[in-house]
């Protein structure tokens, strides 16, 4: 066990190092210069461009820039080129904004997908299964932004309530419970929207896993023993069908920092996705690279956790 953890950590550190190099290279290979350096402004003279390049070390060879950047990152000194704000502070602020969205979205996805998927599998081919299948494909096919518009227009015209932003604009000093409920309400629509796609996909996945397990011999045996069908489905079948999802759980982690550009833009949610997207458009290297690095770390930690979880839940696996 310990040796597994040790090996894992070493391997992942090496991977991380290569990720840092590759992402750094890709960003610099991408055409276009940071917008601070190369705007299409008639007044910008070559001398000013040179001065900006120097300030951002862009006149140095790439490996020197690499050292500069990661040195700054690990000492916490990286600043955004756009507004001179500390990158870590910016990311933390956005992360805290995106966190509730991510949390509620994931919660809805995981709590709804399982019942839907399991029921579909148990009553395979029935009317419930068919309508669930139809609905899933419908949700997968509808573009997220379109669905969001339909929902917003519907909610605003029928309920006359503001839906965008993190809280009602100009809410001021309302009582704490009111403020709290306002937050929850604003959270609801975007997180439901970000969950719909997930529910559609995940419930399909649950269904097929369940069907596979339900066809196994030991399920027939359990039925033959005369066990109540509930026990067969939920104890014998479900437990085994759950195994692959344990690994998926670890992989949700990187989603923490990803955020959704489309949902966040439509709902004016000041989250990670929007910041990263705008940074990419402006070629704000410090922000892009830091987000990239942090998400690489999260992916690696995520896989590590799912390995460990697998170890815990599946007694057949021993290291």
């Amino acid at each position: 066990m310990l040796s597994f953890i040790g090996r894992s950590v070493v391997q992942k550190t090496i991977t991380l190092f290569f990720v840092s190099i590759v992402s750094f290279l890709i960003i610099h290979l991408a055409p276009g210069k940071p917008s601070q350096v190369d705007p299409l402004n008639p007044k910008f003279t070559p001398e000013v461009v040179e001065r900006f390049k120097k300030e951002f070390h862009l006149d140095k060879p790439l490996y020197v820039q690499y050292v500069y950047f990661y040195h700054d990152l690990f000492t916490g000194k990286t600043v955004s080129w756009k507004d001179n704000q500390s990158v870590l502070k910016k990311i933390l602020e956005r992360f805290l904004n995106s966190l509730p969205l991510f949390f509620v979205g994931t919660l809805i996805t995981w709590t709804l997908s399982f019942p839907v998927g399991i029921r579909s599998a148990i009553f395979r081919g029935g009317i419930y299964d068919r309508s669930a299948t139809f609905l899933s494909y419908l949700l997968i096919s509808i573009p997220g932004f379109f669905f969001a518009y339909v929902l917003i227009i519907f909610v605003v015209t029928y309920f006359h309530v503001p839906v965008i932003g993190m809280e009602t604009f100009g809410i001021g000093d309302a009582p704490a419970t009111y403020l709290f409920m306002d937050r929850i309400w604003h959270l609801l629509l975007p997180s439901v929207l970000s969950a719909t796609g997930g529910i559609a996909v995940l419930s399909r996945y649950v269904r097929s896993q369940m069907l596979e397990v339900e066809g196994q011999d030991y399920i027939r045996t359990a039925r033959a023993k005369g066990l109540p069908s509930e026990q067969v489905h939920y104890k014998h079948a479900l437990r085994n069908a759950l195994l692959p999802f344990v690994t998926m759980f670890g992989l949700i982690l990187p989603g923490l920092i990803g955020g959704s550009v489309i949902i966040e833009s439509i709902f004016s949610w000041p989250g990670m996705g929007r910041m990263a997207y705008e940074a990419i458009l402006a070629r704000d290297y410090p922000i892009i690279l830091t987000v990239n690095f942090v998400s690489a770390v999260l992916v690696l930690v995520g896989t590590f956790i799912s390995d460990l979880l697998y170890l815990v839940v599946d007694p057949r696996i021993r290291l």
Partner: protein
Amino acid sequence: MDQDLFQNLTHLLGKDYFESFHGQNYLKSDYQLSKEQWAAFVGELMPAVEHNPILLFNLRPGVKFHDGHLMNADDVRFTYEAIMNPKNLSPRIPDYEPVKTVEVMDPLTVKIVYKRLYSPAIGTWGMGILPEHLLDAHALQKEAFRLGKDPKTFSIRQSAFNRNPVGCGPFKFQNWKSDQYITLDRFDDYWEGPPNYQRYVFRIIPDLLTQEMEFYAGTIDSYEVQPHQVKRLENDPRFQNFSGVAFGYTYIGYNTRRKPFDDPRIRRALGMAIDIEKIIKYVLYGQGEQITGPFVKQTDYYNHAIKPLDYDPSGALKLLETAGWKRNKAGRLEKNGKPFKFTLITNSGNDLRKAILAIVQDAWKQIGIDVHTDLLEWSVFIQERVNKRDFDALILGWQMGIDPDLYQIWHSSQTNLYQLNFVGYKNKEADDLIIKIRQEYNYQRQIEFCHRLHEIIAREQPYTFLYVGKWTAVLDKRIVIKTVDDTGTIRYEKITPTKTGNYNFYFNKWIKLPQVPSFMEKG
């Protein structure tokens, strides 16, 4: 001020009079300098002739910064110095490069002397003034110590001032939530009297549809309306609206270095083949106007005598024929057996340009030209194609200021790589006019030069000028102008735009009433 002064003087004094002056004879150097260095140095220090225009600003007394500190001439000088300080990396340096000295005469008078004639100078001083007492070396040093940073590298760029600005305007900064909103509060000591509104909030809502929904919900009072939204908001009784011509225009630029675009007849024919009115009607939903040249349409510099190109595909074909391009059996244009073939490009992410791309491609195909199109990501478009001159024709737009200075975009010295005359337009007479315009201080003469330049550019068609967009602003009808006169009587008036179409010029007097008011006709 006469820009031809010295030239006219030579008629009286003799041709070589100024050339016979040699500054070297009057100067001595303590250092050994090479001949060229020495000549350049002398040329700058002691030229035979030099125009030194002077701008004298008399500041209004009693203007206060938001922290109560009085604004004076030292702040103006400080602002200039802060911009020129290389440590601050200001992108505005080129604006103030022609300045020779900034002198504080007394606390309310600043004298600015220029190295040469530079008429756009007045516009550059519309710049916000920085408070010296918060940003001078001493203040920065104190801030660096407080934050535990190295005072040697600490500059205005690092200062907390950037997120907490202090100015002299009618509203003072309150707070700023990134990607959410900026709040400003009424400044009671504003020199013109405090504004009516208690608070000004600037919200950031990236999505067009949600902007409109928020506007209906009443949580926004005004926003930038998109062309397709104008129609449904214009006739809504709840809102009042204002519209005007914008400052930017959209054009098709031809790479005049490449054949066949070096021939003005070809460029004109290409322009004639496009139905611009249709573009305005269907792409812009009528929210645009045709233009014929590079000046801002609502200024006097714009030459209204010039008529836009007629939409005339058969005329275009005739013109192409005079240049040697004929239609073959398949209907394709060719010259000496070579087909007329090129690529039209623009940047992705701009739906209007994308639509125009398709319309123009189709229009040109109608007269037998084989046009390919390409959409490129903005920075690729600029860096790889525009800056490196690697294009046949492109669709782009310019955002203009009021000043008629066209040096960077049209002067023949600006055709090198990475410069803005990327179409490679060169014309001796136009060059002269461009220089004269930026040296002329007489408004009437400047207008004359501009009209002439406009005429030349319209004749040569290095661009096909497409349109200038219109902006529309919608406001809740309950917003009116409220004034209180000396006797204390309150008057409400309807908001009316100024001559240039600026509807929020009297913003400080605006107020939102609980009900929609009805006004009596003026009479």
